[in-house]
């Protein structure tokens, strides 16, 4: 009985790590830019499909493929910000919401047109053979994915906290005028942030595409789950997103394990409703009001 419980918790933690990774780009763009990106799931989807192209069609190995995908998506995010997002900057939240929803529809249908509806596979660098750790079963590819997820999360965190670029990002979003007065090129900072968010979404898309499948119409589902995670952790809260992801993963696994499997998707949204009632700024938010 206890073995079963352990297995459920491990399943939940694995999934939770994936949820955290796939929500990271969303919370980053929101936290720094105050832009709610409804096209987040579509960036994830493009990452997955590009991952399929580079590993299967161009037969590159996973890591060189990942470098290519990240570079392409970062460039895509950069250009998108410089030429599209810039037009709705400082115009309040509504234009941003409309723009990104429109972008989501456009990207999904473009992907459907180019690659069609067929689900595709990203070639993983490690096999998916089961590993027995005591009573618990996990596969090598999942352990690998968790390692990459942690590396990506830590990497993004260090980039924002420790580098000059990260400092400039935080300065710009605290006060854009003051930042430009001290010589920061704010336009390029905005674009870099959006590029970073896009690259993170694409990384998770490619990584999880190697475990599940990459598919043109998957974006909506990913966005939904990512929003649950971000609301749980507090919009824009980096550590909150990670904890939010883990909580969602474990809650779903336990609900599915002991209550009912058909209603797991309800768990996340029930949590969101409770959070909005009792802690409207997220579980881990310290400030009651945002600037």
């Amino acid at each position, binding site marked *: 009985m206890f073995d079963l419980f352990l297995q*459920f918790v491990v399943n939940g933690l*694995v999934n939770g790590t994936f949820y955290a990774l796939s929500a990271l780009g969303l919370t980053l763009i929101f936290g720094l830019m105050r832009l709610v990106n409804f096209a987040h799931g579509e960036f994830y989807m493009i990452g997955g499909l590009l991952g399929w192209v580079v590993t299967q069609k161009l037969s590159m190995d996973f890591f060189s493929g990942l470098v290519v995908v990240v570079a392409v998506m970062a460039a895509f995010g950069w250009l998108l910000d410089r030429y599209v997002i810039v037009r709705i900057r400082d115009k309040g939240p509504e234009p941003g919401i409309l723009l990104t929803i429109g972008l989501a529809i456009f990207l999904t249908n473009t992907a459907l047109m180019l690659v069609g*509806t067929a689900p595709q596979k990203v070639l993983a660098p490690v096999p998916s053979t*089961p590993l027995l750790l005591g009573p618990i079963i996990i*596969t090598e590819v999942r352990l690998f994915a968790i390692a990459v997820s942690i590396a990506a999360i830590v990497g993004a965190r260090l980039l924002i906290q420790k580098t000059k670029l990260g400092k400039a990002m935080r300065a710009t979003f605290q006060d854009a005028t003051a930042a430009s007065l001290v010589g920061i090129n704010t336009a390029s900072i905005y674009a870099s942030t959006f590029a970073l968010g896009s690259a993170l979404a694409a990384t998770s898309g490619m990584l*999880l595409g190697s475990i599940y*499948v990459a598919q043109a*119409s998957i974006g909506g589902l990913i966005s939904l789950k990512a929003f649950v995670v971000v609301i749980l952790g507090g919009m824009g809260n980096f550590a909150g997103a990670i904890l939010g992801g883990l909580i969602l993963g474990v809650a779903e696994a336990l609900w599915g394990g002991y209550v009912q*499997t058909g209603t797991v998707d309800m768990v996340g949204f029930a949590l969101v409703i409770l959070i909005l009632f009792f802690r409207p700024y997220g579980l881990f938010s310290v400030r009651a009001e945002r600037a």
Partner: protein
Amino acid sequence: MRMTVLALSVVASAAAMTAHAADTIRIGVIQPLTGSVAYNGAADVNGSKIAVKERNAKGGVLGKQVELVVEDGECQPSKTVNAAEKLIQQDKVPVISGAFCSSATIAAMSVAAKYKVPLLSGVSSKSDLTERGNEWFFRSAETDGLLARAFAKILVDQLHLKKIAYIGVNDDWGRGGMNEFSKQIEAMGGETAMKLYFDHGTTDFYTMLTRVRAAKPDGVFVAAETQDGSILVKQMKEVNLQSKVFGVGSWATADFVKLAGDAAQGIHAAVPYAYTIDRPENKKFVAAYKTEYGELPGKYSAAGYNALNIIMDAIERAGSADPDKIRQAMAKTDYHGPNGSFKFDAKHQAYGFDAVLVRLNDGKPEIVAQATVTDDK
């Protein structure tokens, strides 16, 4: 001079357009082209296109070319109703093929009855669709009940499946299939270990499979489509589940094997169609499909192909593209397709066609047992 040429060409093209509209018979198709079963919906549309192409090459129906108007129903009742309304009101189609998911088809059935336009589903298999007394609805697909009755005995006796865990997608089709199979198998002396549901588009089945593994069943019944099903069987292997797997849905297809890889080996599927069925009509269809799309047809490609042929036969017999005449002619269907012959009973449920139990071996669906879907009496 230039202006005259331009004006002439405008007039000519306008004339060509009206001539075009009068010379074609439009048939509506509603399938999911986005969402988690999009891939299967697209296969149905591909099969439908082959049927129309073949017929048009032979001169069309009633001397006119046939034109398909395809709408995306997303497998959702609300979108499917919109699609049906659009096809009937705006495109003025006299007959519709669709929809895919049983829940969506139920919604479209009421629209068909409201406007008195026949609706033929080649896919939706929930048993009670033809029990609703809707005279505008026809079904050229097997029902879960018919498939379950055809194969329950074989599953229990030949595959020695006594204790069975059921996993199905959480919609009318999945729940219907699970209920029919569990009822029939229990009647044969089988035991139900558990019934678990998942939603369309689910990617992680570990929790569910952990529960199944703990129950140690002999067999696992799965009602799922290509995407969900391929991920599910892969993860079964990952969690080291040793039970025999059998199921309904789009299993015996080349794409399922491509996605599931080694995990597809040894899986049993009860399907109305497999490209390995040995009939001359099927060989012709497989060859045509392969030339057109470069891949082998699956269950849904055949479903679309059959549905459109039945519709076009009915229009031919009706002698005009009038919805009510098509309905009357369709009730008298006697069509020979790649998987046998199709006739409709009084409730407009098709019978007479094959159902096969296949086992995937090296990616090929080998036929283990064959049965004819009989009149539901």
